[in-house]
């Protein structure tokens, strides 16, 4: 184990002379890099940009919903706003977020490898992402798409008067970035582990990425072919789902959700891995029931492929199919609940350190639980018929996607920021941002549960006046949330120049990645480590360092 970094002098925690960030500074060295760490940074910058784009759409939506009349934008524009918000946030932020940024950066470090198995493919995945995003931006700048992010036919194929084809192509190309990333991770985890790193010594972050990668590799191609068929039908009028030829539009919905339900797990599974790492590190205890948590990830990945029909309860699906999908949807709550209970058991009698990543992790556990339980309500046939296509659904998936996936991403970013950059950020501002995100999030989305239950349909911008109070609360929450998201951008950039040096292991954590220098060397380790210890052995590990809490320094 590493020496106690916390007690060391500033000299001792200085970053190493050579690391992956200063081997070269030229633009070429970034655009042609095959270093998994630099590719992670490329993804970090690009997904942050597209998060901001999606955020602008969210802002416009919330502003429009302040009043019951449709007075800010036309109905047609409103359709484009929520569609582009969904497309940007799901395909260009949430799906790549943790895997492409933190996964890329950390998987080789955590398993003791020099790089991922296919470094050039890794770079190609980023270019696929950028080309896909470029095509989508092209459509966005010409007015965007109005079909909803689900692209249901025949509206998308025959009637919509918006840029469906360019966007479908953009998402198709972007799919390959996902497939390449998943393929790379699977092979890396199978074949690149350091000597002694057995399957049950792997960090849970790796297990969750293994499960995620399986879904990426097996689910994304189905979305790809679906979009190809949609593209052919729209551009060349070759009917596949066209009712005029006897085609079945519901078949499109089956295809779409065969990917898009598992895609929910592409977005949430990596977060579950991040939370396991953070909870263990700041409760100073081994994860309770490690094997159960690891295998629960696999269970979620497999079951996740069998529940897509719960999106078609009201789409002329047979009642028996609906019943089966409903039961399977209930089943998938079991592995998810195993994780939550095991985190609870890990926290129980732990010596908890309320550092910023832990703030995010605890927030995650609460919000993910609410999102999961309301998911069970929606999986129940009787309730779903009542709240189908209402704000109840909107609130539910935002609890999972924003309260879950995004909180996990931010928590992970705060946890590994010192490793990525070698610097510590401000304790005060980061605690404040975590608090604002949690409060702002609940104020934004909790009223939407009530709205939905009262009957407010999604995708409408004109609504009865009695709903206004709840909509105003929601918009107020969204503005707090926005501040919570902007703050990290400021203090993270600030920390690059003014932050204290982090040293190898500021949290006193036990994973292999903390044995590397901060920032890590070009090839990660001085020599390939040999693993002779079990995961999460926090007994006797060095204490976590406190984040610098000097408001004056950061304010000045």
């Amino acid at each position, binding site marked *: 184990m590493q020496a106690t970094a916390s007690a060391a002098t500033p000299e001792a925690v200085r970053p190493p002379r050579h690391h992956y960030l200063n081997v070269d500074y030229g633009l070429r060295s970034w655009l042609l890099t095959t270093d998994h760490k630099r590719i992670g940074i490329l993804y970090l910058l690009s997904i942050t940009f597209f998060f901001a784009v999606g955020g602008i759409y969210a802002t416009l939506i919330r502003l429009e919903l302040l009043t019951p009349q449709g007075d800010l934008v036309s109905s047609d524009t409103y359709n484009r706003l929520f569609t582009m918000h969904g497309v940007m946030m799901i395909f260009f932020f949430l799906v790549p977020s943790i895997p492409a940024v933190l996964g890329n950066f950390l998987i080789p470090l955590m398993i003791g*490898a*020099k*790089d*991922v*198995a*296919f*470094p050039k493919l890794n770079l190609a995945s980023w270019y696929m992402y950028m080309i896909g995003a470029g095509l989508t931006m092209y459509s966005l700048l010409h007015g965007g798409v109005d079909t909803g992010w689900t692209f249901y036919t025949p509206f998308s194929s025959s009637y919509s008067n918006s840029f469906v084809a360019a966007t479908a192509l953009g998402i198709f190309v972007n799919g390959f970035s996902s*497939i390449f990333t998943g*393929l*790379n991770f*699977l*092979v890396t985890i*199978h*074949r*690149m582990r350091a000597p002694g790193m057995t399957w049950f010594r792997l960090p849970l972050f790796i297990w969750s990425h293994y499960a995620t990668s399986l879904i990426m*590799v*097996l*689910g*994304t*191609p*189905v979305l*790809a*072919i*679906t979009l*190809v*068929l949609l593209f*052919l039908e729209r551009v*060349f*009028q*070759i*009917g*596949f789902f066209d009712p*005029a*030829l*006897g*085609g*079945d539009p519901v*078949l499109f919905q089956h*295809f779409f959700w065969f990917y898009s339900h598992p895609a929910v797990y592409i977005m949430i599974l990596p977060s579950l891995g991040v939370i396991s790492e953070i909870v263990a590190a700041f409760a100073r205890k081994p994860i309770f029931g490690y094997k159960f948590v690891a295998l629960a990830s696999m269970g979620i990945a497999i079951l996740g492929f069998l529940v897509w029909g719960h999106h078609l309860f009201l789409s002329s699906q047979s009642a028996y199919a609906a019943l089966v999908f409903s039961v399977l949807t209930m089943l998938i709550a079991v592995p998810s609940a195993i994780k939550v209970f095991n985190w609870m058991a890990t926290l129980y009698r732990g010596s908890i350190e309320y550092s910023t990543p832990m703030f995010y992790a605890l927030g995650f556990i609460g919000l993910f639980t609410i999102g999961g339980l309301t998911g069970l309500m929606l999986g129940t046939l009787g309730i779903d018929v009542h709240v189908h296509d209402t704000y109840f659904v909107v609130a539910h998936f935002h609890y999972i996607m924003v309260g879950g996936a995004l909180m996990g991403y931010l928590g992970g970013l705060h946890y590994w920021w010192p490793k990525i950059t070698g610097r510590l950020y401000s304790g005060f501002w980061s605690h404040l941002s975590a608090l604002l995100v949690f409060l702002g999030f609940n104020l934004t989305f909790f009223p939407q549960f009530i709205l939905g239950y009262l009957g407010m349909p999604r995708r409408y911008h004109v609504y009865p006046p009695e709903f206004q109070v709840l909509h105003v609360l929601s918009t107020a929450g969204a503005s707090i949330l926005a501040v919570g998201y902007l703050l990290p951008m400021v203090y993270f950039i600030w920390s690059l120049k003014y932050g204290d040096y982090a040293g190898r292991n500021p949290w006193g954590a036990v994973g292999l990645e903390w044995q590397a220098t901060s920032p890590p060397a070009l*090839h990660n380790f001085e*020599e*390939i480590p040999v693993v002779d210890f079990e995961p999460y052995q926090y007994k006797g590990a060095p204490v976590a360092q406190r984040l610098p809490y000097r408001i004056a320094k950061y304010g000045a």
Partner: protein
Amino acid sequence: MADAHAHAPGLAHHFESYEQQKESAFLGMWIFLAQEIMFFSGLFTCYLVYRVLYPHAFLVGSRELDWRIGAANTVVLLLSSFTMVVAVLGAKQGRRKMIVLGLLGTLLFGGIFLGVKVFEYGSKWEHHLVPGPYFEWHGDPSVGREVELFFSLYFGMTGMHALHMVIGMGIMLVMLPLAWRGKWTPQNHNFVEGFGLYWHFVDIVWIFLFPFLYLIGLSGGSSH
């Protein structure tokens, strides 16, 4: 340790041994093929659903295809798989001329296959059997629209298959000069072998397409 293999030819810096590099390459290729299966499975599912819904129209549509041309093309494609095996064998034994000849043969048979396909597509165009605004059906009017659906699938499936062949042939054109210059050795020819797997996979897809599209029409009639 790190320096021991620093100059090992053809061993990438992040691998510890040829063994690890080879295992990674093959696992990667198999996972890629799993991904391909899922991709084509969308088309096959589409086919399955509509054939169950409209069995008679699918037989009628299938009879518009010439099974003899399809059979001849199947043979051509199997020959291309054989020459691919020759190329892989050449790589394993380090015989660069054998690799080049194998690749050239594969390109030749692949080219013949695509040429025949272009001819077939052309005749479908002339007979107004290409789905879309130019589609016209002069047969039994009661199945016209479902026959168009059959041809959507015919073009979708064979088109996707042909696209995979075109991509494969593009890669072979890049491989040819490399093979000639002796890039692949008995220790390190993972790329050739992996590519062989891809080519065989594309062949196998055709082995399913041929009966599903060309042969079903040979059966007498339909009970429907």
